[in-house]
């Protein structure tokens, strides 16, 4: 039931990508997204697809998991593809279906858009979300944004909020499950009646859930105060992030990929988006 929802898609492992510094991975994934959007023609798209497949192989994440991640996108994929095939106006007519005309350019465009969306999702999730634990992610984000502290942006506090929110999602899901079962045992009926009746039936679940969320927040705040938590100033960390030569290779590889895309765009012929 509720437990089956996977939140924060982190897939534990020990691949090259898993071991990379989270800061570099955040920058690399941004660069990667830019590279995907720079692709203009068939050859550059082919190149970025190969690059993405190489990333997937490098991450050693099972194909099944990757496909499961693409599944929620299926509807958008089909919708954009159909839309582009039918409504793109080009020069080479393929078929005339009276109401709509299908052009060769339209088919190409639809295909490349679909590849772009899939690459975008698979590539960025392989670089970042699948291979970086939520804690590492917020750590990396905090360090990356730390220059903003100079202009009084509470970077540490934001990162702490993110960490705590991520930490409590599974807990609250479990809690919801328990409360739902308890109210079902008292005969609450969630699956019949009109909209208003169903909304009303949620009250016995939402109120205890909120009460328990506040209680947990309060307990956590007290526990943090007891350990003298005073925000980010002067706080040291157990795991220090240090950049090694190998961490830069990742960044440079993605940079090179972006450069290659630009060059391929310039020097290869054919249909371009």
């Amino acid at each position: 039931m509720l437990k089956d929802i996977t939140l924060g898609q982190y897939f534990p492992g020990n691949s090259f990508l898993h071991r990379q510094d989270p800061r570099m991975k955040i920058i690399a994934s941004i660069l990667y997204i830019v590279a995907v959007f720079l692709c203009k023609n068939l050859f550059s798209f082919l190149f970025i697809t190969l690059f993405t497949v190489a990333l997937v192989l490098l991450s050693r994440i099972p194909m099944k998991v990757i496909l499961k991640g693409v599944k929620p996108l299926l509807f958008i994929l089909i919708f954009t593809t159909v839309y582009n095939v039918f409504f793109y106006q080009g020069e080479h007519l393929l078929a005339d279906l009276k109401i709509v005309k299908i052009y060769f350019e339209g088919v190409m465009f639809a295909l490349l858009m679909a590849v772009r969306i899939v690459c975008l999702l698979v590539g960025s999730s392989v670089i970042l979300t699948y291979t970086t634990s939520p804690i590492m992610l917020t750590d990396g984000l905090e360090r990356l944004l730390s220059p903003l502290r100079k202009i009084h942006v509470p970077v540490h506090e934001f990162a702490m909020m993110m960490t705590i929110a991520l930490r409590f999602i599974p807990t609250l899901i479990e809690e919801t499950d328990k409360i739902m079962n308890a109210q079902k045992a008292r005969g609450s009926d969630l699956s019949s009646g009109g909209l208003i009746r169903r909304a009303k039936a949620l009250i016995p679940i939402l109120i205890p859930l909120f009460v328990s969320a506040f209680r947990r927040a309060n307990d956590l705040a007290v526990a943090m105060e007891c350990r003298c938590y005073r925000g980010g100033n002067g706080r040291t960390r157990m795991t220090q992030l240090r950049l090694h030569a190998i961490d830069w290779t990742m960044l440079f590889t993605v940079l090179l990929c972006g450069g290659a895309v630009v060059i391929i765009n310039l020097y290869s012929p054919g249909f371009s988006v």
Partner: protein
Amino acid sequence: MKKIELDGVTYRYSPGTPFCKTALDGISVAFEENKITGLIGHTGCGKSTLVQLLNGLLTPTAGTVFLDGEDVNRKGNDMRKLRFRVGLVFQYPEYQLFEETVAEDIAYGPKNMGLDKEEIERRIEMALHFVGLDGSLKKVSPFDLSGGQKRRVAIAGILAMDPEVLILDEPAAGLDPSGREEILGGIRAYQREKKNTVILVSHSMEDMARYADDLVVMREGKLEMQGSCAEVFAQAERLTAVGLDVPQITRLMGALKRRGVPVRTDIFTVEQAKEEILRLTGGPRHA
């Protein structure tokens, strides 16, 4: 008479995934009518899974659950009606309270049953009486009560449904001794008056010895032992092997026996122990 019964029931969580876990493994056990049956076992042995199967919150992966000889998961069976017949109090039930007043919260179950106003009112009074709460608390918000009082309101919410089978999962966990005694004593009084079936899940052997008639011992999703308190507690070694304990007084009698005192070892309350010792010493001496 058998009231509720599991026949060869297996339950697996997340079947077909790498997280698959067998919580119950082909267990067959029956709970008798008009008795308090204690359900004991080590943490993670499947007790909580078992009780959720009894009121249809979970459906067995294999096997059948019978209530009065009828399969509870048969097609077309009304699950809500089943839950009114088999009342389940979860662990830490105080976290399910939501209404503005104690009376309204207790009335939630009976209201869902579609009872009329006077009947609901009568049941609130009855439930408050058995959990030992004062009628003056009816108009108070449940969130203003102490932890122990909240627990009693939550239990009263199930008692007010007047179920044929009442299941309580660790109803006294985390309470002080007098709180335990009041809640468990109230449940016993309730059972003795209604003559229904009560299943009590607990870790405390002392509580079991005092309040349960029969015991069911589970181990890793299977039935380990079943019988009256005396029968089960007499097998101290077997209980210890499961990672459970016997009441302190039973352990004392066992120790006496090992030192050559010819006492019975199927004794599990202090009163029985007193009788037994008096029997051996030839009755109370009067000065």
